[in-house]
């Protein structure tokens, strides 16, 4: 059965994030004047990385269950976690766990059980900082992702298929990335084809639209393009989406439109649901 490979140190999972760093990402979210899209996405990426480290952490250290890469695309194309594009951008999760850029101290508010909230200080590791400049070279980013995906598949032919998650707030400035995305989805391991998921940050105050199954329901050409670029959710992610309360139809694709900050976090969570093994609730 495809998409069932168990994640292990010999067969790690590959998670590759493509992050739009164009100048428009420096603008605030619709209806949220205090936070830029770039800042919020960077927080979500850092939270995802933190979660992957915690999932892999054992008393004897962080086990390399994941290889993770970030490709930022804006004024330039850059490897967001270090390394060099395009072949050397996937970092073992142990390296990230042991070497965040810095550990910030942040405040979290929790219910106090009596109707109020209590403030708690937490450590927040940072690997990826927000940037916003230039245009949106999405085609270039997908091309670089394709080379990284191919390198991973050559090295790990039996692993869980690579997952590419693209987060953007606008249209590509360098052409149509559909063919490159299709080429990535055509590559695969013994466990199935590589997965490409796309998220479009909110442009209007309306609700986010999650995991669409029918292109005919989309109004504009760019939404249709992102739909065509996106893979169907494999069974475990489809189930995860349903368990999270999304009304996912059969054939639902890994695509989210008009995403607000909460939708970004849930997209990254559901789009990286792979099983190391029995996981705590």
């Amino acid at each position: 059965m495809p998409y069932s490979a168990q994640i292990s140190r010999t067969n790690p999972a590959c998670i590759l994030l493509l992050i739009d760093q164009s100048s428009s990402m420096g603008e605030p979210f619709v209806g949220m004047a205090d936070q830029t899209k770039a800042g919020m996405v960077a927080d979500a990426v850092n939270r995802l990385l933190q979660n992957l480290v915690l999932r892999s952490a054992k008393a004897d250290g962080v086990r390399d269950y994941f290889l993770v890469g970030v490709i930022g695309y804006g004024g330039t194309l850059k490897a967001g976690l270090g390394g060099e594009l395009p072949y050397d951008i996937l970092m073992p999760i142990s390296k990230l766990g042991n070497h965040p850029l810095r550990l910030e101290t942040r405040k979290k508010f929790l219910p106090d059980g009596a109707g109020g909230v209590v403030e708690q200080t937490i450590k927040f590791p940072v690997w990826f900082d927000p940037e916003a400049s230039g245009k949106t070279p999405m085609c270039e980013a997908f091309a670089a992702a394709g080379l990284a995906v191919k390198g991973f598949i050559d090295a790990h032919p039996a692993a869980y298929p690579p997952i590419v998650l693209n987060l953007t707030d606008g249209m590509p400035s360098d052409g149509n990335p559909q063919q490159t995305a299709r080429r990535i989805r055509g590559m695969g391991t013994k466990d199935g084809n590589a997965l490409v998921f796309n998220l479009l940050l909110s442009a209007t105050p309306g609700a986010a639209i999650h995991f669409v199954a029918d292109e005919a329901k989309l109004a504009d050409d760019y939404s249709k393009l992102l739909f065509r670029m996106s893979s169907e959710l494999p069974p475990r992610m489809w189930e995860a989406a349903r368990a999270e309360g999304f009304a996912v139809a059969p054939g639902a694709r890994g695509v989210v439109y008009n995403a607000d900050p909460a939708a970004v976090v849930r997209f990254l969570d559901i789009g990286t649901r792979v099983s190391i093994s029995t996981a705590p609730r």
Partner: protein
Amino acid sequence: MPPAPLPWVSASVPKAGHRAAENEDACAANPGRMRYAVADGATEGWQSGGWATHLATAYARRPPTPPDFPDWLADVRRTWTPPPVAGAAAWYAAEKQEQGSFATLIGVEFRASEHRLGVSWKAVAVGDSCLFVVRAEAFEVAFPVTSAAAFGTRPPLVPSAADRDCPAPEWLAGWASPGDLFLLASDAVAKYLLDRRPPPGRDPVVAAARDSVASGRAERLLDSLRSLSDEFKDDASVLAVLVPVPPEPPR
């Protein structure tokens, strides 16, 4: 006169490609009191193997009853001291420690009876580690999971942290007949057993468990689990207990 201990044996193998020290399953027995348990530490948890061992051992020392399970668990948590982390603590160590450890639990306790044929038993389960009672060639009991399709990736787990709710345990009791083979199995083996086409009694793992418990040597059961470790894709453990057939009384 105390009852004669039941013959039993246990075997546990780590998932393929892992070292024995990385095995996060645990088996525990208190043969004198006829109590047996298997616990399966969650892979993504912290110190899961140690917590699984603590949990299974606590059951073997004193099993809970339905009304006192919360107190029993509170006591188990109170006596749990995670092994110290070697070297300087990384940022993630503190966070994982705070999240705590997680494990499934299946335990069974037998009670001798005045009746010369058989013993009574009662079992408790949290999660998908299972108890099987093999009678003749069939599963007389599969508990708490009864079909291979019912196994998921997020089973109920017993958390070590006092501020985390524990899922409600499941309870079952019954009467064992002479010749019954009791198998406590971690989820990988349990799923495998429920997925078999041949009658369970003829399955190689069940046959190896029966041979091993009869001979008192775990090697055959261990070999059987090792030979299937690629299929299990997980740590795999079996604790087998045989209810012996009493000798014919002298005429």
